[in-house]
């Protein structure tokens, strides 16, 4: 058997032995009990039979004995001993002397017995029964019947044979049973043991025992297999975790290696970069200085800083940031630098140079640790030149604005000149006509008449007489009078024209003065009148651009309280803007519509609509900002100023825009009814 070891009792043998012992013991026990019982019953039966036989014989021999019939008694006794089991029979007399006997060959009886002998005596394998022969209550003898128990011995032998053969059979049966049992229990167990041994030896948890039957052993095998599976799983898990662990350890180890490498490299790089940064700092073209954040002392400077400020390094190191900062105390410098941010834009400062100059610098500070000290590395960007340029630019811009404002004025002046020019033309012509007429006047005729009369003074009668020259004089005088009257009329007309033209010029100039003068007087004005005045002033420019102008005024408009000068300024500005907005619009589609309506908020709204390009939505509010312009040449009176002026008059200026163009609304407060006539104020 595989796996069997020396010195060990195999299960099969133990089972066999156990079975043998069980069989043997059982068998022996059964045999002994049965034999004892059988022997006993056989003995008692034999004894009873012997006793009964003795009693019967005693009865039978009583009379012969009494009579002493020896033959009769001997016959009775011979009959008894004919029995197979009866070996001897004897009758003793009362005195114990043998009377007669009958024995089987080889056997004999005692020559005498005790006179009182009674009962059964065993003398195995013989058994004797003593039975008294009683006659009339008098013992007359004793009969002894001797039986043998050899049959019983025979039975014993047979029993022994049977038992032995049974035990042999039992042993065989036990052997067979053991074999069978071994196959059913032991073999799987042994197999299981083999598997376990294999598992134990080879640490191979993948082997499995094969369950043979669905009995306890089968269950055991299954359980064993399950256990193996579990072990295998655990083993695999353990293996896996070990592998994982090893991998982790490996990874960590390599990581550590790398880290160490990195650290080495970083240290090398640090050493390297330290050198590079140093040179970067030293040779940086921008002035750099390192300042202790606590004391604001300058700890280090680069060459550019020395060059720029003029201080030597030694001088620099004796200075602090506030000492070179112009017109500022150190608190402000600290406040600017002590920011939690790593980099901070410290703004612009004025710094003193060594030679007393002041430079403007833009400081950028970066935090750094210098040993244990907090420091700032400060980059000083000299913006003196840039700022100067900027200021110049601002100045230039201002000049440009001024120039464009003047240009705007010139534009207006040109318009004025055009208007004045035309009127002046008429004035000139009128004056010339007057001069010519005066020169050619026939008033000289009166002098001629007077001279003629004086010459004819001596002979007036002839002169006025028939056929005389004087005859025609009254007619001439009449004609002269009518001529002079005519001249007078023409001259008066011409003079009137002249006065009118001069008035016209005055009006234009007054308008111009109104336009140009400073803060005006608040008074009440008819809104249509203001619109008309503004349009008149802008007329030339609008006409130049072929812009059609229409005015839609609501009927019965109330007067507004306003500064005429400001309103005209605003309206002119709006008209100019409208005109400029339509520069790209084709001719014939350039339209300005001025609408005047009364609003519910007790204001009059003058709206200037144009058919121009409109205003971008993002610009709708910005256009009122100071300095905002989308035009190349900013206008003299910006929308900012206009909006301010409108506000000053308790009015408002607003804008809307659509695809059709832009609309500007000037809202002006309606005049209080009380002071309605004190309106037209003369110019100061």
């Amino acid at each position: 058997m595989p796996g069997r070891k020396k010195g060990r009792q195999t299960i099969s043998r133990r089972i066999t032995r156990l079975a043998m012992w069980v069989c043997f013991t059982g068998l022996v026990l059964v045999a002994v009990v049965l034999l004892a019982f059988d022997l006993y019953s056989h003995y008692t039966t034999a004894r009873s039979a012997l006793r009964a036989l003795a009693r019967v014989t005693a009865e039978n021999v009583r009379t012969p004995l009494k009579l002493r019939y020896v033959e009769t008694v001997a016959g009775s006794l011979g009959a008894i001993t004919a029995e197979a089991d009866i070996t001897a029979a004897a009758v003793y007399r009362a005195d114990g002397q043998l009377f007669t006997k009958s024995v089987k060959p080889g056997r004999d009886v005692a020559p005498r017995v005790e006179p009182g002998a009674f009962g059964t005596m065993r003398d195995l394998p013989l058994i004797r029964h003593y039975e008294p022969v009683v006659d009339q209550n008098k013992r007359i003898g004793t009969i002894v019947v001797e039986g043998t128990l050899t049959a019983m011995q025979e039975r014993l032998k047979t029993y022994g044979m049977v038992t032995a053969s049974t035990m042999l059979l039992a042993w065989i049966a036990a052997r067979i049973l053991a074999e069978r049992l071994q196959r059913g229990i032991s073999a799987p167990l042994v197999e299981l043991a083999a598997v376990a041994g294999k598992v134990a030896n080879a640490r191979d948890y993948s082997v499995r025992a094969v369950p043979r039957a669905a009995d306890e052993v089968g269950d055991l095998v299954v359980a064993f297999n399950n256990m193996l599976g579990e072990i295998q799983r655990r083993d695999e898990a353990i293996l896996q975790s070990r592998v994982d662990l090893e991998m982790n350890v490996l990874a960590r180890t390599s990581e550590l290696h790398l880290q160490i490498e990195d650290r080495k490299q970083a240290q090398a790089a640090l050493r390297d970069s330290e050198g590079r940064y140093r040179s970067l700092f030293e040779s940086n073209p921008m002035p750099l200085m390192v300042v202790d954040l606590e004391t604001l002392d300058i700890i280090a400077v680069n060459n550019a800083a020395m060059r720029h400020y003029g201080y030597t390094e030694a001088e620099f190191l004796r200075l602090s940031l506030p000492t070179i900062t112009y017109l500022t105390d150190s608190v402000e410098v600290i406040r600017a630098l002590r920011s939690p941010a790593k980099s901070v834009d410290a703004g612009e400062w004025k710094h003193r140079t060594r030679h007393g100059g002041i430079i403007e610098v833009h400081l950028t500070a970066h935090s750094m640790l210098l040993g244990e000290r907090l420091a700032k590395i400060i980059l000083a960007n000299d913006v003196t030149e840039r700022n100067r340029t900027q200021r110049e630019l601002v100045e230039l811009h201002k000049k440009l604005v001024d120039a464009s404002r003047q240009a705007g004025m010139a534009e207006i002046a040109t318009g004025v000149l055009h208007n004045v020019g035309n009127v002046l033309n008429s004035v000139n012509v009128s004056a010339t006509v007057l001069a010519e007429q005066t020169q050619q006047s026939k008033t000289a005729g009166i002098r001629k008449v007077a001279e003629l009369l004086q010459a004819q003074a001596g002979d007036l009668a002839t002169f006025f007489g028939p056929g005389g020259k004087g005859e025609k004089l009254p007619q001439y005088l009449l004609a002269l009078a009518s001529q002079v009257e005519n001249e007078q009329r023409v001259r008066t007309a011409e003079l009137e024209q002249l006065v009118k033209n001069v008035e016209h010029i005055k009006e234009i100039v007054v308008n111009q003065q109104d336009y140009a003068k400073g803060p005006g007087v608040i008074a009440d004005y008819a809104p249509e009148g203001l619109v008309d005045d503004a349009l008149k002033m802008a007329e030339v420019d609008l006409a130049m651009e072929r812009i059609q102008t229409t005015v839609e005024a609501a009927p019965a408009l109330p007067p507004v309280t306003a500064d005429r000068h400001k309103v005209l300024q605003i309206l002119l500005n709006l008209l100019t803007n409208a005109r400029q907005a339509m520069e790209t619009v084709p001719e014939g589609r350039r339209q300005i519509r001025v609408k005047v309506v009364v609003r519910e908020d007790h204001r009059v709204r003058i709206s200037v609509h144009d058919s121009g390009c409109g205003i971008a939505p993002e610009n709708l509010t910005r256009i009122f900002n100071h300095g905002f312009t989308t035009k190349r040449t900013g206008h003299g009176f910006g929308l900012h100023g206009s909006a301010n002026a409108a506000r000053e008059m308790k009015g408002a200026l607003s804008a809307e825009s659509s695809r059709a163009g832009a609309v500007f609304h000037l809202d002006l407060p309606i005049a209080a009814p009380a002071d309605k006539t004190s309106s037209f104020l003369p110019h100061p």
Partner: protein
Amino acid sequence: MSVHRKILIIDDHRAIHEDFRKILAPPPMVSEEFDALEAELFSDGGSSPAAETRENYELSSAYQGQEGVALARESEAAGTPFAVAFVDVRMPPGWDGIETIARLWEISPRLFAVICTAYSDYSREQIDEKLGVTDRLIILRKPFDPVEILRLARDLTNRCDIERAGGRS
């Protein structure tokens, strides 16, 4: 009376037209009767010189460039072209003076053009650039001297007359 005394005035201001009329075609101030009487009474004095020096100009008025060009086209078609045109520079909303002159010359190339301007809308260079260098263009500044207008009208109509006569013969 020459047939080439026709003058075209293009200006958007009515007052200017009036001015031109006063200078170039003033209404006769002195009646014929008065002159006769005076001559009779003061026979030694002779006749008045002023009336003799006056030319008779035929003035046409246009208030827009387009209108002026139309008039020029009509008179050209009728065989009585204008000799001189006084043209304003600024004449909103239509063509400006420069454009009007350019178009006038398309119709009447021999026309003398006097451009009247109250201010320098265009410089001489700009005008030359637009209209070409020509002696047929005279620039006149407003306000103008009536004598200058008279002189220009007379000189230019005469030149025109001579040119046409020369051209015809």
